[in-house]
C-alpha cells in the first residue's frame, strides 16, 4: 500500500516570474497556473542558479550549483558521482518518469539512467512538442496502476520559442501582422535604464539586434505580446495536466511543483532573452500545491533552484544525498538570508537577499549593487557613486563564503573558474 505522495514537477522554459495572471499580470491569461497559485505556496523571490537552460536544469536535477555539477553552460553532462532526481527517487522506491526537455549535454534523449523517458522534445516547434508531452503524461497518469508512488517530471519547452521570435524578426518589416495598439503590453518602467553596466553585459546586448537598438518601441511591445501568447500556449498544456489529476483522483495524493529554469528579460533594460543578472532573467516562478490545501501563502525569503531536490525529498520522506547545496524550503521557516547565482560560464557571480543584489565579475572591476526593496526594477547601480562600499564588501564576503564550501567540478576550464 502506497502511503507516500506522488510528485508532479511541471517545468516551463524561460518563463518570466510574473508572466502569470494570478501574479497580477494584465497582459496574460493563465487559468492553468492560476489553479496552482491560488491554492499553493508561492515563492516570490525564487532564483535560478544560472539563467541558462543547461546549468539551471543541472541544479534542478541535483540540488547543486552549476560550478559543482560541471554544467557551466549548455552542452555538458552532470559530473559523474552526483545523483540526479531520477536516480535518487528510483533508488528510494519511486517510479521516476521524465517527459520533454532534458538539456544536460543533449537537448533531449530517450535514455536517461534512473528515468523512464516517455517522451522527449520533438524536433519541431515547441507547441507540437509540448502537446506530445501532455498527451504522453496524460496517458501515463490515466493508466497508472502501481502501488509505488511516482515522480513525474513534465519538462515543457514554451515560452522558449521567444528565442526564435527574437532571432527571426530582426527587422521592423518582418513584422507582417499587426496587433491593435490597445492590445500591446506597455513597456516596463526600466526600459530605458542602463544602470552603470559592466562590459560583459554591454557585449551581450550588442550581440542581439533587439537590444542593440534595432527595434523600435512598437516592436518591443509586439515582442511582449507574442511572448505572452507563448506563455498561454504552455498554460493550456498545464491546465490539461491538472484536469487529468482531478479526473483520475490522483490529485488527492499528488504534490504539484511548478517552476521555470530561468526567466526572460521581457524588454526590461531594453533587453530580450536571458543571460543577465537582472531579476527578469534570474528570478523564476515557483509554486508548490499540496493536496487538500485550499488557500495560498506567499514566501518572500530568497530561494534557489538548488532547493528543489531536497524539498522533493522531504515530501517523499526520503534522505537527501550526503552532499547537498540546496535546502528544504517546504515549511517556509528556513534560515537563509541570501542565495547565490552564477552567470557567463561562471565568471560572474551574484548574491541576493530580500533587500540587495550584489553582482561581481572575474574579469571586470565594475560591480553592481541594487536595493531591491527601493528599486525593484534595478535602475540605479548604488556603486556608481562613492557610497555603499561597506555594504558591497559585506555582501561580497557573504557571496564568497557561500561559494567557498562548494567543490568546483574538475571539468570546468580554468578560464571559467572564479578567482577572488
Amino acid at each position, binding site marked *: 500500500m502506497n502511503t507516500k505522495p506522488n510528485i508532479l514537477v511541471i517545468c516551463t522554459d524561460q518563463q518570466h516570474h510574473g508572466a502569470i*495572471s494570478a501574479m497580477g499580470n*494584465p*497582459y*496574460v*491569461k493563465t*487559468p492553468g497556473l492560476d489553479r496552482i497559485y491560488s491554492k499553493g505556496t508561492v515563492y516570490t523571490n525564487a532564483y535560478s542558479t544560472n539563467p541558462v537552460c543547461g546549468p539551471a536544469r543541472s541544479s534542478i536535477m541535483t540540488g547543486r550549483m552549476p560550478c559543482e555539477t560541471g554544467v557551466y553552460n549548455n552542452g555538458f553532462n552532470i559530473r559523474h558521482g552526483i545523483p540526479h532526481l531520477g536516480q535518487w527517487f528510483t533508488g528510494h522506491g519511486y517510479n521516476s518518469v521524465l517527459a520533454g526537455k532534458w538539456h544536460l549535454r543533449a537537448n*533531449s*534523449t*530517450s*535514455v536517461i539512467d534512473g528515468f523512464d*523517458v*516517455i*517522451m*522527449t*522534445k*520533438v*524536433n*519541431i*516547434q*515547441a*507547441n*507540437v512538442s*509540448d*502537446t*506530445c508531452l501532455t*498527451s*504522453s503524461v*496524460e*496517458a*501515463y497518469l*490515466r*493508466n*497508472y496502476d502501481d502501488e509505488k508512488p511516482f515522480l513525474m517530471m513534465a519538462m515543457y519547452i514554451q515560452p522558449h*520559442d521567444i528565442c*526564435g*521570435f527574437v*532571432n*527571426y524578426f530582426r527587422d521592423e518589416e*518582418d513584422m*507582417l*501582422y*499587426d*496587433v*491593435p495598439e*490597445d*492590445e500591446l503590453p506597455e513597456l516596463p518602467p526600466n526600459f530605458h535604464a542602463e544602470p552603470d553596466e559592466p562590459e560583459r553585459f554591454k557585449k551581450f546586448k550588442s550581440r542581439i539586434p533587439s537590444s542593440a537598438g534595432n527595434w523600435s518601441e512598437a516592436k518591443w511591445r509586439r515582442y511582449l*505580446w*507574442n511572448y*505572452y*501568447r*507563448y*506563455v*498561454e*500556449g504552455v*498554460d*493550456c498544456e498545464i*491546465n*490539461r495536466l491538472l484536469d487529468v489529476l482531478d*479526473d483520475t483522483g490522483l490529485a488527492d495524493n499528488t504534490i504539484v511543483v511548478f517552476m521555470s529554469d530561468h526567466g526572460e528579460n521581457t524588454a526590461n533594460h531594453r533587453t530580450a532573452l536571458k543571460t543577465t543578472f537582472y531579476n527578469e532573467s534570474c528570478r523564476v516562478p515557483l509554486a508548490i500545491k499540496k493536496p487538500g490545501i485550499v488557500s495560498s501563502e506567499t514566501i518572500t525569503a530568497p530561494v534557489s533552484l538548488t532547493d528543489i531536490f531536497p524539498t522533493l525529498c522531504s515530501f517523499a520522506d526520503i534522505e537527501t544525498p550526503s552532499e547537498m547545496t540546496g535546502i528544504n524550503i517546504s515549511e517556509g521557516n528556513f534560515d537563509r538570508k541570501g542565495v547565490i547565482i552564477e552567470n557567463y560560464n561562471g565568471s560572474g557571480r551574484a548574491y541576493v537577499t530580500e533587500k540587495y543584489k550584489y553582482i561581481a565579475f572575474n574579469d571586470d572591476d565594475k560591480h553592481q549593487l541594487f536595493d531591491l526593496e527601493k528599486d525593484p526594477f534595478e535602475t540605479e547601480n548604488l556603486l556608481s557613486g562613492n557610497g555603499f562600499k561597506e555594504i558591497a564588501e559585506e555582501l561580497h564576503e557573504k557571496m564568497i563564503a557561500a561559494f567557498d564550501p562548494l567543490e568546483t567540478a574538475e571539468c570546468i576550464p580554468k578560464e571559467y573558474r572564479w578567482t577572488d
Partner: protein
Amino acid sequence: MRGHAGPRPGDEPITTRLTPKIILMAKGIEKENFFSDEFPDKDSYRLIYRMWGNHQRMEFQNKNMGYLEIVKETSKSKIEFKVRKVIVNFHNLTQTITATLLCENDDIITPLSYDYSSRITDNALCTRPDLSLDRSGCIEDGYVIEKIKGKEYKRQYESPLVFDFTVYDLVVSGKEYGPFTYYENLYSFKPGNRLMNLTSESTLGNHKFKMMVQYGTGLTERIFHISSAGLPVMMVQNSAVYILDEDAPNAIGKLQEELNTGGVHYEY
C-alpha cells in the same frame, strides 16, 4: 494593415464553428481551388490531404506526419473527418494519433461525436500499453460527454472538438510551390489556442493572406505575405507542412530534392 481588434486576455473566451475553410485551404494557389465557403456540392466525396513536416532538412525523420481525410458518403447524412498524425522524434519515440470526428452535414458542420486514440512506441519500436489512451465522446446540449477508460466525464463544450485532439498541425497560409502546396504551420488547435475564420478579405492574388487567429487567449488578424521567391516570408514557429497534390508526379522525391538543394527554409 491595421488589424481587427479582438478580445484581449480576460475577455470572454471565443468560440468558433467548424467550417471547411478553417479546416484546410488546399491544393493550389488559385482561389477557386481552395475550399469555398461550403464543402463540395456533391453527394459523395473523399478528400485526402497528406502532411509532411519540414524542419532541419528532415534529417530527423519528422516526416510522413499523417493525413486528414474528409469523407461524405451518399448513404450517410453525416460528414466524417478522419485524422492520422504521426510524430517521430529523433530518438525514435513515436506518437501516432488517429481520430474520427463525426459532424452534421449542415452549414456549420456541427460536431456530433468523436473517437480518438493515441499510441506511443519506444525506441525499440514497441508500443507501450501504459502510454496508450483511447477516448470517445458525444456533444449534447452544450456539453461534451466523454468516456475514458470506462469512466464518463461531462464537460462544457467550448470549441470544435477537432481542435481539441489532433489536427493541430494543419493550415494557416498556403502557397503553391512546385508540385506542393506549402503551408505555414503555426498553431496548436487545442482549447484556448484556436484558429479562427479566414476573413472574406483574403487576397491571394496579391500575395497576401489575411486570417483571424486566436493565439493563446488573444485574437488578432494576421496577414501573411508571399515573397517574390514564392515563399511565405514569415514564420513564427519554425516549421511547415507540405501538402502534396495527389497527382503530382514524383512528388515526394521532388520535395526532398527541394529541401536538399534549397536548404533550410526556416532556421531556428
